[in-house]
């Protein structure tokens, strides 16, 4: 019964999403308050039903109910409980159900926290959200139903793809989806403004928390995915410019641009139209990502079962939303009022520069991702646009942006003074220069470019610190006053500084790993040792191990530091998942500070040895820690009190407006 209840709840949620689309929209067209008021409760009810449906599927997984085709295809009764639960979204149908669940969740959040929104805006936003929901509910029900049944039920399932049987599956997809789908709210706000042909004064303020939240989740999702690929795939890479990775990176880039242009819009009522366009583009890129990953156009661990009808369906959704919103934009954008003016050298100017670079970078990655697909579709020829293309185009584009970052927050609004800002950044510049020189002379095997890269990272971090120091007046006022000011700084200032600092941290990690990494591939027999990056690694031997649903050959290593002291053991293994007869490599990783020693087992050789690949990855953890710092920055900004705009009550607003009318 529980399975069919979930199925029915899903169908009911689809019906409600249609109501959520049509009724509030009719309400705003007819000017009928009661119809507009339907949006909120329906959104909440739709979320409750989707959650019920998701819970039912989860229950089917937990109880190994193989009468559900989806469970039979992706689960196994011997699988550990954690993977039974995460397996719910470790497949196409379940992950789409998670997608609509999060979509409904964000809709419900707008309904809950949207009391301070103007009634028409709220109704329109929820209506657009309802339309997106309806499209995806229909997609799930028509092409990817997770509740399809098998009768009679088999007694055992086919198990989950072993690569996905990892704690990463519990974190990466939900975070990523929260990011992807979170941008749908920005999209809905943009389309709602276009439908009305009016942008409320607080539009940017209302959109900002959603943008921030989506951005924070997307940052976390991408960082987690990158770390997961790094330790699970067993070749020690952390970013491959793989189309699937690009699909998540594209909305991140344009979302970052949106985040910054929304600041200008909020503070100065400028860049309104541009911000709307970015909001539309960012969600469009999220949809494009969903299409690329879910349609089976690409083959990867994300593609699951491929089915042409699904691809076609998502393509239709893509055309409907991207085409529809851009058409609406073309129709209405000209009727929106322009905002305040500003001098090119100003905070606004700096943010425009940021947007220029970020959108160009987005376009570059987009071309690099789609070009091979287009070529294949048109000529049937398979070409690969790999890391060289992106290194040649993306990095030169991002470098000037990184150099410019510390200037932005120090510029004044409206009309800034570049020279004065440069003077104030003198200390940071000196510090960065010092770091370049020190690393050049004291780090072995470092090149000029690497030292320069480390300098850029230092410049970003020191720039962020300078921003905080100047704003709290360190150096110009007494320590006590400076401390009081520091504590009293708006949280968004801390958010900015933290996020920019995190960017520097990630840059440092990337530069260090790309330029200073050491890789060795050797054949080792038990007892043999090999030196790597100041450590000595000894191979102890291989022993078999029996897991719950896999067997593995565990290779044990011990490593010593330069003084010959034992520092710890590393376990690296090759697993065989019995149900699917699928082998995986479990890399052994030892962490020293922010650096890691990474050991992957290869094939055994005929003379009793085994091929071992060992990497020394200097400062590699900083790549993801930087992401965590950026997330902290975003969260800090999210907590800023200026995001909470009070709602006027019907009675109070009259009194408030009286002096205003009189003054006129």
């Amino acid at each position, binding site marked *: 019964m529980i399975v069919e209840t979930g199925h029915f709840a899903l169908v009911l949620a*689809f019906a409600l999403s249609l109501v959520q689309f*049509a009724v509030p929209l009719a309400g705003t067209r007819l000017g009928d*308050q009661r119809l507009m008021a339907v949006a909120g409760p329906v959104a909440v*009810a739709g979320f409750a039903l989707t959650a019920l449906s998701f819970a039912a599927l989860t229950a089917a997984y937990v109880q190994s109910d193989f009468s559900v085709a989806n469970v039979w295809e992706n689960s196994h009764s011997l699988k550990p409980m954690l993977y039974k639960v995460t397996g719910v979204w470790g497949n196409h149908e379940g992950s789409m159900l998670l997608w609509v669940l999060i979509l409904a969740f964000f809709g419900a959040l707008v309904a809950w926290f949207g009391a*301070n929104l103007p009634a028409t805006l709220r109704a329109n936003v929820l209506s657009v959200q309802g339309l997106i929901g309806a499209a995806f509910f229909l997609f799930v*029900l028509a092409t990817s139903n997770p509740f399809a049944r098998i009768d009679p039920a088999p*007694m055992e399932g086919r198990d989950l793809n072993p690569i996905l049987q990892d704690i990463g599956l519990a974190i990466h997809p939900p975070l990523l989806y929260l990011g992807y789908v979170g941008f749908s709210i920005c999209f809905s706000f943009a389309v709602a403004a276009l439908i009305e042909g009016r942008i409320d004064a607080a539009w940017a303020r209302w959109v900002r928390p959603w943008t921030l939240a989506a951005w924070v989740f997307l940052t976390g999702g991408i960082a987690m995915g990158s770390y997961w690929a790094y330790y699970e795939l067993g070749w020690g890479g952390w970013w491959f410019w793989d189309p699937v990775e690009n699909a998540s990176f594209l909305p991140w880039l344009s979302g970052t641009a949106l985040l910054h242009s929304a600041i200008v819009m909020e503070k100065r009522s400028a860049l309104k139209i541009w911000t709307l366009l970015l909001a539309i583009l960012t969600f469009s890129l999220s949809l494009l990502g969903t299409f690329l990953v879910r349609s089976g156009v690409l083959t990867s661990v994300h593609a699951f079962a491929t089915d042409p009808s699904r691809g076609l369906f998502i393509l239709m959704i893509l055309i409907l939303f991207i085409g529809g919103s851009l058409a609406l934009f073309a129709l209405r954008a000209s009727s929106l009022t322009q905002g305040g003016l500003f001098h090119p050298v100003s905070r606004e100017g700096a943010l425009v520069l940021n947007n220029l670079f970020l959108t160009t970078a987005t376009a570059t990655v987009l071309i690099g991702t789609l070009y091979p697909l287009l070529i294949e579709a048109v000529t049937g020829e398979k070409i690969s646009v790999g890391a060289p293309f992106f290194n040649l185009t993306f990095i030169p584009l991002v470098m000037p942006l990184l150099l410019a970052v510390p200037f932005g927050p120090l510029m004044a609004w409206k009309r800034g003074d570049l020279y004065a800002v440069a003077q104030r950044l003198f200390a940071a510049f000196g510090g960065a220069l010092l770091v370049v020189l020190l690393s050049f002379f004291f780090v072995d095997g470092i090149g000029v470019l690497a030292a320069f890269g480390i300098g850029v990272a230092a410049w970003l971090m020191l720039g962020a610190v300078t921003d905080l120091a100047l704003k709290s007046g360190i150096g110009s006022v007494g320590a006590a006053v400076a401390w009081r000011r520091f504590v009293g700084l708006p949280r968004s200032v801390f958010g900015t500084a933290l996020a920019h600092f995190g960017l520097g941290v990630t840059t440092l990690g990337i530069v260090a790993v790309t330029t200073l990494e050491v890789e060795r591939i050797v054949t080792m027999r038990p007892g043999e040792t090999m030196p790597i990056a100041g450590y000595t690694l000894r191979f102890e031997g291989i022993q078999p191990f029996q897991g719950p649903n896999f067997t593995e050959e565990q290779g044990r290593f011990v490593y010593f530091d330069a003084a010959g002291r034992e520092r710890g053991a590393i376990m690296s293994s090759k697993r065989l998942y019995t149900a699917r007869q699928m082998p995986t490599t479990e890399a052994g990783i030892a962490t020293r500070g922010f650096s890691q020693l990474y050991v992957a087992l290869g094939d055994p050789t005929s003379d009793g040895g085994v091929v071992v690949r060992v990497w020394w990855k200097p400062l590699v953890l900083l790549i993801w820690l930087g992401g965590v710092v950026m997330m902290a920055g975003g969260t800090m900004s999210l907590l800023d009190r200026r995001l909470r705009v009070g709602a006027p009550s019907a009675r109070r607003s009259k009194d*408030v407006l009286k002096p205003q009318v009189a003054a006129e």
Partner: protein
Amino acid sequence: MLFWIVAAVLTLCACLAVLLPAMRVRGRAVADADHDLEVYQDQLGELERDAARGVIDAVEAEQARAEIGRRIIKLAAERKQDGSAGSGRLGRIVATIAVLAVPVASWGIYAAIGSPNLPAQPLQARLEKNPADSSMQELVARAEGHLAANPEDGRGWEVLAPIYFRMGRYNDAVVAYRNAMRLQGVTAAREIGLGEAIAANAGGMITTEAQAAFERALEIEPDNAKARFLLATGFAQEGRTKEAEGMLRTMLDGLAADSPWRGAVGQALAQLGVEADPARPGPSADDMEAAALMSDNDRAQMIENMVAGLDQRLRDNPQDAEGWRRLVQSYVVLGRMEDAGDALKRGVEALGDEGEAAGDLVAFAAERGVVLEGQVEQ
């Protein structure tokens, strides 16, 4: 029944979520301009705080204050254009349609794609329910659970082996017979069972391995009619007609007058007689050797031919549940999953969608990863 009650309650709640807000009487709407005013006042307050903290200088603060002031003035003009009243009648019609659409759409769609009569089947509950109510598969799964915990229970393997065979899980039957022999000792009956399972797993082909099993059985019980008969059949399959014939003849001579094997042996001999035309000389010693040393490729070819033959036979005479099972199994062994799916579909059609035989066939196929087309996509 409970499901329908739950579904009805859920539908009712969904309808109420539409109906209640649409029925509530509203006070005067808050105009959009009021919201904007609130925002501007908030901005002014923030500006004052920033100025007091010294984050921005006096000139900048004054400019910003003037800008916000200009925006507030603009509002008043906008406010005059506001004030549309609700259109009562049309609104009520829209609300009514919406409330009705929820149950109509949801029950309509669910009726088309749902399986309301299929209960949930958690694995644990299936394994724990009264054995009398359990299906064969469930009983087997339970026994498997027992054997996974006590793999040295030879008696368990002994019981399970022929059941596996009957379910068509020939590979598992092979393992079970081997385990039974390892733990309970070798007997002729077990060796014969093993041989049969190996042969069935090869799609009915009595392979060298199966022959070896029958030969071992004959060493223990030289008079075992079944082992002898199957071994002879194996020879016949390999084209060693003379040997097969000789073996069957000696067997026929040794059988009691009322032995049930007489009929079968007679039939087999008759078949051999048809195939081995007396006008043509029998296979030479070289031929026989070649057949014995047949390469894997040729053997695979031979199996393919046999499967094709079976396929054709079922097209002519489809009312053969066992035959369909063997055909599905053969295609799975050959890795031709699409053909297996096709065979399953034809089998179900031939045996009648609703019948027990068809159900057994579907279950049998599902065990091997073959699912009836349209079953998953529904």
